[in-house]
Structure formats: C-alpha cells, structure tokens
C-alpha cells in the first residue's frame, strides 16, 4: 500500500516557480530523503505534504486519500522541525503530550503514551524540565518524541539535525536509523547533508530547481548518478569530472594523448567523435602498479591532505584537476608525477550539454 503519493505537485510564488511538477510514490515503511541545496524546493514540498502550504497544482494522497485542502491536524502526520519548535512555557512531558491533549485523549492514556515515548528516547528523567533547561540534543529528542507519541501514518522531518554539532549529529543520525528500523514508520526527511541522506534513506530524491533530478536507492544514487548534478552533489569529496572525447576506439581525456579502449557497449552509449564528461569517484582512483589494468591517468601531484583514514590527494592533468582518496600511508611527494588508475566499472559518462548520464539504462 502506498503511504504517500505526490502527484505532479507545483508551487508558484508570483512569477517564481518553486516546484515544477513533483511525482513520488512512497510505500509504507519507506524512509524517503529529499536531498538538495537550499532553494531547491525540498522544504516547500515537505510543507505542502504537511498542509502548512498549499500547492498551486497537483495532488497529495496520504493513506490513499487526497488531503488537498485538509487541515494539518487531519492529515495523520507529525512533523519535526529544524528549530525543534518546542513550546517554551511547557514542561517536556506536556510538550510531548500536547498533540494528544489537543485531540482530547484521556489524561491517563496520554500519560502512559508520554512515558512510553520518553522511555524509548531515553528522556524519562527530563519529563519535568522546561525546554530552556535542555541541551540541543535533548531538545531534539523531545521534538522527536512529540512526533512519535501520536503514532501517525507519516513522519515529516525538516532538517532535524542541522542545528546540532557534528558529534551529536552523528549520534542522533544513528538513533533515528535505529528508531526507523524498530518502528518501521514511513518518513519523509528533508536535508542538504548527503551523508544523512545516504545513511538514513531507503530512497533518496535529489532535488534541484524545483525538479527531481534523480529518485532512487542510496546505492543507485551513488553508483549510477543520472546527471552531472547528482554525481557532484552526492559523495565527499565529490566525483571527479573531466572533459574527454569518445573516439572510434575508445576514450581520450582532454589534455592527454592516450586513448583507452572501451567496451563496445560504452562507446555506443555516446556517438564516436563527440565530447563527453567523464566521471570517476575519488575513492575509485588508486596509484597504478606497473601491471595495472583499466584506465590510467598521468597527473602532477599538487596537494595531499591526511584526514586520518585516507590521504586526499589533489593532482593536475593538463588544465584539469582530480582528487583521489588513497590509503593513508601512501608515500607521495607534491610536484611528483604519478599514474593513477581506475576500473572501467567505475567510469561514468555524461552528456556535456544536458548533463544526463550516457550509461543510464
């Protein structure tokens, strides 16, 4: 059964088109992440699902019924906000139970639900406190508790972790994943953080300029990005994008002479003689051994940055730069010329004009 169906949703503010026709069908229990940079329309879409904003066109179905024009409280949703949005004058217990209180749930039942939720989130000892007496992480737990306690069909998260410091963000991310695995709830989660998207999502919708650039599982998004934008957005450091040319025999990177033979299937993906963009992830690159197979790139090493688990190396091929994530103990010197190699399987080809992948099936 589909939990949420987003049908051709559009949103205009005057002349500005924020959403240009979004279609997503969300199955029950899915964790959908709307990923994109600020201004891509992801928060607007979430607000439209919540009923906090009205679409200019299209339809939203929750539990197979259209909720267009329905009040947020009648949509069977709960929402967690970036700013936590706790009621400052109420205790933690009352904050969590407020939705139930407004729905006239009897006090005893309400109290039990609040207690159970608090236990699940390990905030039982905080129930009598006011939000101002809590740390950021604790506030976020309370905000999540307020959503959980109502047991709605769909949870909406609007950048819930972006106000937390890096360490706490990781902890809460794991916590959210644990909760989702345990409760099997349907979630729509907005973020601009690609790590959050990759780790939490069962499916990711990468959004750009009011459109969905690609909708797929984290593996699909990472392994087979549909466009240059997705390729550059997901992954850290981002995918290397190089200008290249397809010849009758294979691939020639701009600024180099060597032509690498490519399987027929790859060459036929683009027409021979045309310019393409080549994509290769930094983690797919390695220092070539003499007997290395695959595609080789000769580059001048410029900068090396040791992050701990890896050595992020920036090198130059002619006018173009590449980044490679190498093992931390690799001995390299800036200014030296090195040969990097990668497997054909790690190769991405994009149309330089519209940015679409030439490998997409």
């Amino acid at each position, binding site marked *: 059964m589909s939990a949420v169906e987003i049908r051709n949703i559009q949103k205009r503010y005057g002349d500005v088109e924020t959403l240009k026709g979004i279609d997503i069908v969300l199955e029950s229990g899915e964790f959908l992440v709307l990923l994109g940079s600020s201004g891509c329309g992801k928060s607007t879409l979430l607000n439209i699902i919540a009923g*906090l904003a009205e679409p200019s066109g299209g339809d939203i179905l929750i539990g197979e019924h259209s909720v267009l024009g329905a009040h*947020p*409280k009648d949509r069977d949703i709960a929402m967690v*906000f970036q700013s936590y*949005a*706790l*009621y400052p*004058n109420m205790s933690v217990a009352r904050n969590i139970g407020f939705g139930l209180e407004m729905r006239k749930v009897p006090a005893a039942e309400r109290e039990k639900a609040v207690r159970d939720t608090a236990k699940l989130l390990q905030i039982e000892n905080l129930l009598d406190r006011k939000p101002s007496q809590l740390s950021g992480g604790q506030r976020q737990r309370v905000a999540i508790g307020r959503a959980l306690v109502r047991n709605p069909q769909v949870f909406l998260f609007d950048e819930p972790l972006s106000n937390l410091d890096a360490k706490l963000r990781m902890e809460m991310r794991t916590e959210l994943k644990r909760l989702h695995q345990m409760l099997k709830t349907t979630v729509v989660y907005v973020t601009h953080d690609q790590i959050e998207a990759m780790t939490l999502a069962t499916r990711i919708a990468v959004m750009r300029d009011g459109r969905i650039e690609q909708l797929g599982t984290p593996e699909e998004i990472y392994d087979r990005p549909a466009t240059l934008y997705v390729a550059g957005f997901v992954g850290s450091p981002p995918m290397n994008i190089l200008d290249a040319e397809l010849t009758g025999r294979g691939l020639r990177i701009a600024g180099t002479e060597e032509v690498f033979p490519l399987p027929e299937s790859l060459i036929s993906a683009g027409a021979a003689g045309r310019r393409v963009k080549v994509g290769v992830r930094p983690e797919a690159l390695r220092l070539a051994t003499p007997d290395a197979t695959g595609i080789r790139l000769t580059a001048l090493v410029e900068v090396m940055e040791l992050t701990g688990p890896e050595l992020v190396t920036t090198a130059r091929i002619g006018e173009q730069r590449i980044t490679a994530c190498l093992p931390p103990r690799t001995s390299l010197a800036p200014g030296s010329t090195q040969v990097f190699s990668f497997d054909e399987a790690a190769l991405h080809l994009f149309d330089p004009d519209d940015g679409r992948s030439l490998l997409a099936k």
Partner: protein
Amino acid sequence: MSANWISTRAWLLMLPLLVVMVSVIGWPLVDTVRLSFTDAKLVGTAGSFVGIDNYAKMLTGSNFQRALVTTTWFAVVSVTAEMVLGVFAALLLNQQFRGRAALRALMILPWALPTVVNATLWRLIYNPEYGALNAALTQLGLIDSYRSWLGEPGSALTALIIADCWKNFPLVALIALAALQAVPRDITAAALVDGAGPFNRFRFVVMPYLAGPLLVALVLRTIEAFKVFDIIWVMTRGGPANSTRTLSILVYQEAFSFQRAGSGASLALIVTLLVTVLAVAYAALLRRAAGAS
C-alpha cells in the same frame, strides 16, 4: 589614576544634571511637602503650620473619595478595554492581507496625535448640536433626538473612556504586534500539526510570548490612566456635576481654582503616593514574571 579620582570625576560629570534635578524636582517636592502642612493660599497668605489637618480633611472628605472611585473606574475600564482592543487589533494586523503595511501605519495615528487634538476631535464628535455620533445614531434609528453626551452625568465618563481608549489602544496594539512577530513560525506550525485550534493556539502558543510585553503595557497604561488630566480637562473640566472629576482634576481645582495651596499640596502628595504604590506593586509583578519565564 586612583579609584578615588575616578569616583570624584564621575560625581563632577554628573553634577550639572544633579543641580538641575534638585532644583526642578527636589526642591518643588520638598516645598510641596512643607506646603501640605500649612493653610497657605495660592495668593496672599504664606500660611501657618496646621499639622495633618489638610490630610485628614482631604481623606475623609466626600470629594476625595468620589474622585478616587471615578479615577479607579476610569483606569480599570479604559485600560482593560485598551488591552483587549489592542491585542485584538494586533492579531488582525499580524495576518497576511493586502494593505497591511498601510493599515499598520494608520493605526498608530490616534496615539501619535497630541492629547489636546484628540480631545478636541472627540468633543466635536460628541457635540450635542452637530456631532457625528448624534447624526450617526439618529440616522440608524438608535436614538430619537440629539443628546449631550458630555453634558449628562450618566454618559460623560463613558464618553471620556471611549475617547481615551481610541487614543491609547494603538500603543498596546503596537507592543502586542511586536511580540506576535517574535513568535517563531515553526512553533505555530508545530501547534497546527499538533491539532491546536485558533483559541488553543492563542492560549498555549501565542500568549506566553505576549504576556511579558503586555504586562509592561499594562503597567504603563495603568499608571498613566491613574494620573489622567489633560483629556478630561479639555473635554469636560471634571463636569457635569463633578461626574468626571478624577484625582488630578481635583488636585488642580483645589490648588488653583479654589487657590487652596496647602490642601492642594496634601492632595497632590496623596495621589503621588497612590501612583507610587501602583508602580512598586507592578515592578514586583514584573520581576516575578521575569523570574518565572
């Protein structure tokens, strides 16, 4: 530089202001206290010491007691109405609609007008021969003939209260509007999702943000209303039949109309004491509210 010199210099820098304050506030106050224990007239006799006679006479006299009731009634009704109207206006002006900015600016106008202008304006509206209120009510068929709103003891005080409200509710509205804009959008959205209706959203979500600023407005307005003089003086001079004679009007009449400087001074000090008690009580209230939030 020694600490001693710093402190000396501070006093030196404050000296001009201290001199001004002592001469325009301190000395008149001391002299008023002295006067209040004499039977001095405004012109002629310097008066002789009469002890607490003035105070006793004033406090037990019916004029004072009646003025106290009138003042309290005026203050309670007008401030309550201003608070309710002000909050209501702020809630409306906080909605999205065309012409909101213009309306916000317009709303401040009554408050920006000098009190005398406002009072004159309302005297014209209440005019028994050509007033707009009479015309409107007659044309609507609510009254048969023109009435003298300010000339009848039954309606004069109410008419004054309306005029005072019209002038002062914008201040409350302005303060409330500023407070409303401080309510985070996310919290309102969270309350919507939580299923709180308009009344519950106001009570549980908006009110906590409004309470502090409104308390300040309440303090300011109550103290001002208790001291009210100008609007009444321009519109009714305390009449008819003393029905709008508040404490400040009474003080003025005693000291200047009847030229009894001694008893006028004692009355003025009693009013000062009452307002001070109010101010101190409110200050305590504010401190408690600040501590609670």
